[in-house]
Each structure stands twice: as C-alpha cells, then as structure tokens.
C-alpha cells in the first residue's frame, strides 16, 4: 500500500514538472492606454479573448479601436475591427474628432468590417459565425492582422435566442482566435440587463480571460467615468475602479497607484520671488518639490504663486500656470497691479497659461488637459490655482486626481505649487485641509488676522521637508511693488498685525524719544555736577598742594631759622666767654680746652 502511494506521488510530481515546462505564463500586449497598461501590469493577454462590458456611451468601442490603432502605430500590427452595430461610416465619424488621424490609416492596415445583418434579414433557425470567421481568416491572411475586435458581438449572437447556441458561438470565436494566434477584444453591452442579458454577460465573462467593465455614474450633476478590471486570468491586476476620461486623444485612464519613488531629487533652491520668504525658507523652495499654499479667499495665494512663476521665468525657466474659472487675461491684469508682470513671460513663450472650467469637467478630464500641456510645454514650474477646485465637486476621484497632479510634477522633476482654498480660518490651520497636504513637501498657510477692525494676512510655514525654516508668523504685505513679508510685532505678550502693529511701533518710537530727551537732560545735569565737583576737587587739590608747599616752606624756613639761632647762641656764648675768660683763673681756661 505504501509503495503504491509513493508511486502516485512520484507520478504527480512528474506531471507537475511537466506542467511547469509546458505552460508558459501569459504574455501581454500594451494597449497604449498608459493608465490601463499600468493597472494590468502590461496590457491585454496576448492570443486571448478580452471582453469589454459597459452601458451605451461608456467608451467600449473606443477602448477597442484605440487599442487597435495603438498596436498598429507602436508595434506595426495590422488589425481588424468588426462592427455588429454601427455602420462603418459612423465608426469612422465617431473617431474623426480625435487626434488619431484615423481616416488616414489605409484599409489594409486597419480594416473596419461591417458585420451587421441587413435590416430585413429574416431568421429561420440556428446559425453560426463560421461565415464571418472564414471571411476574417481570408482578410487576416491578406493583411497579416494580429488583433481583432468584435464590436457589439452580443447583438448578433443574442438573436440565436438560446443559451447553448450562444455559448457555442462564443466558444467558436475563442477557438478561432487561438487557432489563428489573434488577440481579440469583444465588446458587450450591459444596459438592458434582462435575465437573459445578465446570463449572457456572465457567460461571456466566464469564457473570456480578461474582463473589463466601463461604468459611469452621476454624482450630483457630475458624471464620472470609471474603468475596472473585473478578471484577468493568469495575471495580477489592480481590481479597483479607476477614473477614466475621454478626451481628444481618446480614452485615458488615471491609475490611482502612485509610485512615489524614482522621483528626481534636487538640492538646488529656487526663489519664491519674495526675498524675505526665501530667507525664512532657508534659501527658497527646493527644486522639484511640491508646495501647498492654503488659505481663505483673498489671502494672496494667486499672488504668491505668480511671484514664483515670474521669478522662475525671469531666470529663464519655463512655467505652466493652470487656473480655474478665471481667464488668463484677468490673472495677468490682476498681477500687474501688484507689480508682477506675467504678460511679458507669456509673450516670450516661457509661460504657458491655461484656464479650465471646474464645472462640467471631471477632475480626470482637467488632469488630462494639464498632462497634455505639461507634455507639450515641458515646464520647470507648474502652478495649479486652485488645486482644491477638484475638491469642490462631487466627483468621487477628486482626491486621487489631486495627488496625481502632484505625482505628475514630481515624477518629471517639476517644482509644483498648488493653492488650496480653505474656509475662513481664524489664524489657525484647519484640520480639514486637503489630502495633498500629506504629500506636499512644503505647506504654507496664509490666514486673516482680524484686529482692531482690520484684516491682515498672516503667513506661516506649516511644514517644509528637508529644509530649515522659520516657525514665526509673518505679515504678508501686498504693495504695488510686489509682495513682502514683514515681521509682526511681538512683545508685551501680544502679536500685532497691520496698523495695530504700526501704531504700536509708533507709540514705542515716541516713548523712546521722550526717554532719550530725558536721558540727555539727566546726563547733562549729572555731567555738570560731576564737572562742578571735579572743579571743586581740583581746587581742593590745588589748595592742598599749596598748603603742602606752604608747609614745606615753613619747615625749611624753620630749619634755616633754627640753624641761625644756634649759630647766634654759639656766637653769643663765645662772645660771653671771651669776656669771662678775660676775668677767670688760667686753670679754668685749661679745663675748657680739654672738653
């Protein structure tokens, strides 16, 4: 028994070894829709069936046709587009407005094949798609097609009206593409959703290797498109719905996987255009970093952004200024009034301005417009004013898109400045600041400070990664010569702005003057006192000296006098002895001589 079990396990492992070598992992074909290729880690499964399901107008045909065009343009692979619903003319008209130059593609490179049954066709019994596949085989052989799209295949096979027969035809198509080595996309509608339609959709999903669902939903009055990979056999994929937009280049998918690595890193500093701001930022913004500028309406966010742009352009850098709901001309005029000349840089071609409407455009569409301009203009500085325009809509991907804009800039080493409109903040940073603040390198907040019936702008650097920066609140002053930062009055336990600061400063100045005068007077008086005392001291010293002199003279006079007296006494004595000697005994005379 044990021997038998061993044998079984040997056989199994041999079989498994065989499987490893026999089955290759699936290969993928990029669709050329960058975001889609990113979330599927390479594109569609090569040599397999992919089904795109969605309601009408969701872009199923566009997705399929765009893939064919991209495969032709990038890999030189001819393609077949089989339309079951729309006439060839309409397919061509539908994409004529896009920048694909679709109608210049020769028929032998990308064939659009009408597979609609004539309108008066009567169905009498079961049929199969062998005829179509035979025709496609012939066309494939003639033009070397590698990819095929069956657009609206459900319209044809649903007329079989039998689950088994439908499944058989789908299997026939699957068999055909595998035999012919074709990569196929089937588009299937999902709007009617009767029980049978649901079954068919389920069946198609079951039969195919990759299922993509395109959806659209209204959020308030805002229409948001999404793309979701529902299934992908043999491959990992991001299963979340990602935002999608249809622009003049066709479908674009905005993946919400932000890499956040491989960003170019710079140590260079670039000027904000406000010298004092550069100073407190320890030399300016770091090149390639992202800056969030938040504040209430009218807190000079646009002015600060323009200042950065103007300073950059003046150094010969290129910039893109994206605004919402305000015309370029209006911004240029507004900035001129505070001495920032943007018009000059627009004229020189360094500055590209774009005004977007936040209403009626999804953030995805706005993002793609920004991407497009960034690709064309290749700026060093990108300003989006306000970045929070996205957040004011009900679109579900606003936060993701905001991040994507920052990511776009960072990935290209572009210095990014986004402004964010925050509600009236009383000098405090609101906790509900937009999500971007977490990925912004520098966050500057400008708030209003109301004091003594006056509003003033207070600028704070909330954070600044990797650079030293001041933690002081500054007053932001707008003059006709530009923007300046002024130190606020801090003292006496008070922080004062604007005219209150000026007043306080004047008050201080006046007090100081008074103090100075008083000091001078006191100093003068003291000086005089000292001088007087010094004079007196000098007089005393002189008197002392003269007294000393007098005393010395007295002393010396006394000496002279005493000497003179002694002399006089001696002389007197001598004189008296002489007189005595003349009368004393000669013996006394002798005695005195011996002394």
């Amino acid at each position: 028994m044990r021997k038998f079990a061993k044998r079984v396990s040997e056989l199994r492992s041999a079989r498994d070894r065989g499987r490893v070598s026999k089955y290759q992992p699936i290969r993928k074909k990029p669709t050329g829709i960058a975001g889609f290729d990113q979330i599927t880690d390479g594109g569609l499964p090569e040599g397999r069936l992919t089904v795109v399901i969605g309601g009408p107008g969701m872009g199923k045909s566009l997705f399929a046709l765009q893939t064919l065009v991209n495969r032709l343009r990038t890999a030189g692979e001819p393609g077949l587009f089989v339309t079951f619903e729309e006439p060839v003319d309409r397919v061509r008209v539908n994409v004529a407005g896009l920048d694909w130059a679709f109608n210049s593609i020769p028929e032998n490179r990308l064939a659009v094949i009408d597979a609609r049954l004539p309108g008066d066709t009567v169905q009498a019994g079961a049929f199969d798609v062998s005829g179509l596949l035979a025709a496609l085989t012939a066309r494939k052989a003639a033009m070397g097609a590698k990819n095929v799209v069956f657009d609206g295949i459900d319209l044809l096979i649903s007329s079989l009206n039998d689950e088994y027969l439908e499944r058989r035809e789908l299997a026939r198509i699957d068999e055909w593409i595998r035999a012919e080595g074709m990569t196929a996309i089937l588009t299937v509608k999902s709007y009617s959703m009767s029980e049978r339609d649901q079954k068919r959709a389920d069946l198609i999903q079951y039969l195919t290797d990759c299922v993509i669902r395109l959806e659209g939903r209204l959020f308030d009055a805002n229409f948001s498109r999404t793309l979701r990979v529902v299934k992908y056999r043999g491959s990992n994929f991001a299963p979340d719905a990602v935002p999608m937009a249809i622009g003049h280049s066709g479908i674009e998918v905005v993946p919400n996987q932000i890499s956040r690595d491989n960003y170019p890193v710079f140590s260079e500093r670039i000027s904000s255009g406000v010298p004092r701001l550069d100073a407190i930022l320890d030399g300016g913004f770091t090149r390639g970093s992202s800056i969030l500028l938040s504040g209430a309406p009218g807190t000079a966010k646009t002015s600060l952004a323009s200042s950065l742009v103007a300073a950059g352009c003046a150094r010969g850098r290129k910039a893109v200024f994206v605004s919402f709901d305000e015309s370029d001309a209006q911004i240029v005029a507004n900035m001129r009034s505070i001495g920032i000349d943007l018009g000059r840089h627009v004229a020189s071609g360094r500055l590209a301005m774009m005004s977007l409407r936040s209403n009626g455009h999804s953030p995805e569409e706005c993002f793609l417009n920004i991407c497009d301009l960034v690709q064309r203009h290749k700026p060093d500085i990108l300003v989006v004013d306000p970045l929070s325009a996205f957040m004011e809509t009900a679109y579900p991907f606003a936060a993701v898109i905001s991040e994507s804009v920052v990511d776009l800039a960072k990935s290209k080493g572009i210095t990014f400045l986004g402004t964010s409109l925050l509600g009236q903040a009383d000098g405090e940073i609101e906790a509900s600041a937009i999500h971007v603040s977490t990925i912004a390198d520098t966050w500057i907040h400008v708030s209003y400070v109301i004091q003594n019936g006056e509003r003033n702008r207070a600028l704070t650097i909330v954070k600044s990664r990797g650079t030293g920066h001041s933690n002081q609140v500054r007053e932001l002053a707008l003059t006709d010569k530009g923007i300046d930062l002024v130190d606020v009055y801090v003292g006496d336990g008070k922080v004062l702005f604007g005219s209150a600061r000026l007043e306080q400063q004047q008050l201080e100045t006046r007090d100081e003057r008074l103090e100075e005068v008083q000091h001078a007077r006191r100093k003068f008086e003291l000086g005089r006192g000292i001088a007087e005392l010094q004079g007196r001291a000098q007089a005393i010293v002189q008197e002392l000296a003269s007294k000393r002199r007098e005393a010395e003279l007295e002393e010396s006079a006394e000496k002279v006098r005493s000497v003179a007296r002694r002399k006089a006494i001696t002389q007197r004595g001598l004189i008296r002895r002489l007189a005595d000697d003349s009368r004393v005994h000669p013996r006394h005379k002798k005695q005195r001589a011996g002394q």
Partner: protein
Amino acid sequence: MSAKAPRKGHMPVAAANSGAKGNGICLRLYVASTTPNSERAKSNLDAALRDFSVVPGYRVELIDVLADAKRAVTDNVIVTPTLVAIGPTRQLIMIGDLSDSHKLQGLLEAAANLS
C-alpha cells in the same frame, strides 16, 4: 430547434448549382462546408423547393465559404447558413438552418414576386 430530417429522393441542392435559368431569380445559399447548421439548411431548402413549387424559374447557387473565403469577404457573409434570394432589383435575406418551414415558404413566395 428541431431540424427537419432530410427527405429522400429529392434533387440535392448541391446538384442544382447549374439549374435552369428562368426569370433570373437566384437562390444563393452560403454554407460552412458540412457543419451541422449548413447540412440542415441544404436539406431544408431542398425539401422546400420540392414541396412548394412557388418559384417558377430559379436557380440555386451553393457557396461554401470555408472553401472560398474570398467570396465570404466580397459578399460580406456574416453568419452561415445565409440564404439570399436575388432578384433583378432587390434581394431577400434569411439566416439560419431554415428549420422554420413557414418562414422559408414565406421567403420563397416573396422571391417569386421579385421578378
């Protein structure tokens, strides 16, 4: 979905390719070789033509798109089997294995009026 059993003793469609040229009505049947649907369509058409002599002068043309894929391209064949009744000015199209004899009869009657 019940296909009619082929009847015995009729002229097979395949043999009718070079049939009598009458008033120019052509019954063209596109098939995919001998796949079940195509086989059923051939025999159903045979049976109908024998049972209902409603088209006074016609010819039957049989085209195998698997053998002649170019023809499938030029004639834009989408499904097989497809029966096309071609008159001088317009044509009638029927798809399927022709198992619905009422519909087939209707087509043949209409085809008679094409001329």
